[in-house]
């Protein structure tokens, strides 16, 4: 099997020294983490390795030697390097060597029996793979290879292939803590993290965040306790809460905030990412809400809105009245049964009358209500939007009623007609076998059935027309609500933090790796450059999208059409809302 030496790009220009890293036997790859420069005292090196090892459970070892020939090679160094193998005994013992011109590399792996055909020269059995230590350290593989909660040891075992490499680099972070400038016993060269001050700030923030979190959690728990107190769960109220989308939205936000501010720190990166996404989305939401608030409360827009609202409702009612008048005539020259037509028309007209009076009762208070509603925008744009959708639902309540009446009536007719049609054909529905059987009816049954059938057939168009019109109205309203809910869900569930990360630091979210073959001449080991393959945006959204509060559509378009045709009630508010997507 080919021996793969993963070599950090930052060490390519380092001086000669020892190669420190981890040997992964199951895939015969050596992950080189750092280079220890001369001069050093072997004991100290071993100490350093030992302490790093017991802080991060990584089997660190001295893998071999690294010599970077700047000037003419002197034999002594070469022999000296040979000798080192005796001190730090490791199988295999790598001897990495870089000639003057940076192109020429050579690598010898002694004490490692290549189990392949012995004829092949050992040069071909070694492969140098350069990797950017920083990116590999910071990046996060998707999907995560090792289970997050298992112990270090079996994490090592479970992490296969490249995941093991990533894992090793990530775990041996402590090795990189030591700074270039501090005078430790041994001089290492590896990736240095710049921006110490920034890291200090981060430390301060971390330190401060603890108490704040505690405080906020306390407040939130108070709020949630208040929301769960007996009074709110009495029957009518609880029913109303379940129907109002505002309450849904508030509850959802409350959960999110409690999740964000719970003081124990996230144990795995995905949860951390989740927190960050929630936090950003909440921030954005509130920011948008505040802008809306400022816009609303700037120069008496509320009043204008309030004055506009009542006439609009009136107007809607008027339109409905005209529509009903039209229906009670001969709409589009349709053959409707006059008597039934009149009855239905009067019935609905009375409803509209009730509705108008109700609106006029409300009209003085509307402005104040709106004002308070507007305040709610400081809780976030989504809350304001859901309140808007609730208002729409309330203002179009009459349409909903009409729809329900029409649907019930129509459904009744359809069922009756279908069964009577079977009777008309001399068949009957067999309930036990779930099929249509032939059946011999009595004469009087036939007669009455046919009579009813005829009557229903002639009355069908009238009800069907009413049903059609009011269903269309209902669908219109529901579509508007659905669009609003879509917007809310978008704001709720978009993983903004992850997207930003993908935009600015593509290597942080890695879909995998890709290799580039560096130019190579015969006799020399093959050199590859390992790059991070960033996650596509679609996958990012797919993986990190937050659970949206709106429940997803229960039934497909076809079943929706079926229901509409058979006049079954398509339940309003939420499921219908999400039907739009």
């Amino acid at each position: 099997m080919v021996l793969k030496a993963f070599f950090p790009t930052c060490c390519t220009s380092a001086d000669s020294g020892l190669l420190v890293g981890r040997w992964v036997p199951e895939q015969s790859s050596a992950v080189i983490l750092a280079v220890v420069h001369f001069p050093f005292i072997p004991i100290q090196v071993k100490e350093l390795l030992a302490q790093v090892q017991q802080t991060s459970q990584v089997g660190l070892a001295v893998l071999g030697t690294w010599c970077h020939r700047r000037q003419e090679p002197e034999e002594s160094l070469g022999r000296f390097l040979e000798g080192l193998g005796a001190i730090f005994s490791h199988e295999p013992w790598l001897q990495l060597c870089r000639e003057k011109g940076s192109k020429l590399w050579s690598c010898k792996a002694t004490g490692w029996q290549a189990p392949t055909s012995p004829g092949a020269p050992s040069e071909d059995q070694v492969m140098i793979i350069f990797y950017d230590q920083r990116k590999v350290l910071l990046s996060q593989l998707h999907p995560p290879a090792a289970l997050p909660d298992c112990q270090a040891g079996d994490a090592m075992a479970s992490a296969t292939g490249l995941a093991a490499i990533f894992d090793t680099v990530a775990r041996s972070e402590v090795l990189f803590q030591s700074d270039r400038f501090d005078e430790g016993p041994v001089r290492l060269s590896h990736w240095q993290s710049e921006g110490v001050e920034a890291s200090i700030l981060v430390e301060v923030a971390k330190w401060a965040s603890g108490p704040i979190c505690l405080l906020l959690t306390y407040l939130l728990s108070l709020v949630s306790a208040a929301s769960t107190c007996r009074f709110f769960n009495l029957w009518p109220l609880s029913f109303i809460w379940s129907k109002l989308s505002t309450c849904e939205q508030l509850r959802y936000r409350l959960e999110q905030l409690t999740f964000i501010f719970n003081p124990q720190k996230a144990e795995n990166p995905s949860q951390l990412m989740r927190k960050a996404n929630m936090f950003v989305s909440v921030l954005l939401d509130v920011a948008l809400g505040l802008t809306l608030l400022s816009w609303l409360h700037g120069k008496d827009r509320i009043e204008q809105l309030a004055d506009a609202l009542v006439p609009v409702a009136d107007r809607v009612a008027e339109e409905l009245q005209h529509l009903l008048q039209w229906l009670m005539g001969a709409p589009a020259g349709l053959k409707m049964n006059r008597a039934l037509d009149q009855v239905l028309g009067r019935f609905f007209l009375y409803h509209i009358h009730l509705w108008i009076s109700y609106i006029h009762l409300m009209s003085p208070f509307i402005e104040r209500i709106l004002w308070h509603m507007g305040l709610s925008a400081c809780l976030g744009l989504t809350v304001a939007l859901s309140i808007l959708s609730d208002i729409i639902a309330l203002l179009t309540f009459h349409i909903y009623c009409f729809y329900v009446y029409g649907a019930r009536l129509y459904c009744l007719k359809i069922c009756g007609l279908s069964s009577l049609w079977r009777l008309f054909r001399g068949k009957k529905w067999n309930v036990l076998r779930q099929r249509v059987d032939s059946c011999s009816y009595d004469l009087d049954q036939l007669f009455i059935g046919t009579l009813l059938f005829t009557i229903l057939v002639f009355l069908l168009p009238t009800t069907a027309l009413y049903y059609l019109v009011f269903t269309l109205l209902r669908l219109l309203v529901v579509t508007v609500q659905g669009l609003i809910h879509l917007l809310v869900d978008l704001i709720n569930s978009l993983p903004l933090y992850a997207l930003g990360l993908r935009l600015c630091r593509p290597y942080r979210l890695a879909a995998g790796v890709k290799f580039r073959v560096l130019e190579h001449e015969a006799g020399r080991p093959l050199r590859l450059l390992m790059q991070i393959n960033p996650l596509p945006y679609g996958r990012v959204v797919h993986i990190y999208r937050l659970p949206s509060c709106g429940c997803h559509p229960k039934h497909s378009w076809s079943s929706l059409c079926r229901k509409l045709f058979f006049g079954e009630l398509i339940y309003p508010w939420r499921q219908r809302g999400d039907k739009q997507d």
Partner: protein
Amino acid sequence: MSAEPETQAEEIRWQKVLYERQPFPDNYVDQRFLEELRKNIHARKYRYWAVVFESSVVVQQLCSVCVFVVIWWYMDEGLLAPHWLFGTGLASSLVGYILFDLLDGGEGRRKSGRTRWADLKSALVFITFTYGFSPILKTLTESVSTDTIYAMSVFMLLGHLVFFDYGANAAIVSSTLSLNMAIFASVCLASRLPRSLHAFIMVSFAIQIFALWPMLQKKLKARTPRSYVGVTLLFAFSALAGLLSISVVGATLFALLLVSISCLCPFYLIRLQLFKENIHGPWDEAEIKEDLSRFLS
């Protein structure tokens, strides 16, 4: 097998079996090829008058439809008082009922276990429901244009004639459907009448002529064929007379139709039998002779 010389073919006789190898090529054609081919084995010989007699059922049904239409026209014109029609209808149905019982001799009752009380009940149901619904029927179709109604009822009556059970066991025959179509047509027509009483009487008359009358006919035909022929002729002539009083042309056409159905069609049927050439053989799908419905009923 193809290698066999033809000389062997003479002494070894070819036989029509598959289970033993025969010294003939697979595409060998024996002189017995197609010997089981038959022609017209099921061609029945019809006797003219028998066919004419059978055709009288169709004539009856045509006539009853005609009579119904005629009566409706009279009532629509107001030439016929509903009370009078109701009385005669009631009386005739009573007579028919008694006649039916006489012919039946009560054994039909014993088979079906149907009591007179049940008959009375269904009669009451007819009357009450028709009477109750008649105002609705009156206003039912007023917004629908008359032509639509006519078209619909013509269509329905034709359907009634098509699906009626003339005694032939074909797939499309369904007495229920035909009866329902007739009632539908009657309701449609009744809703065109001036007053709700008319509608009520029209529908009840439809019941009598489309539901009850055929039952009586069947009995008659089964029991006393002679009287049945007489009744048929009488009925046909009365229908013709009624139609004559409306329009001469219609009457003549109708008469021609009846004549052609009862006389010409049988004649043609017997003539065309001569040209029949129907290939039969062992490959035919065997049809099941005895009726298997007795195992299920």
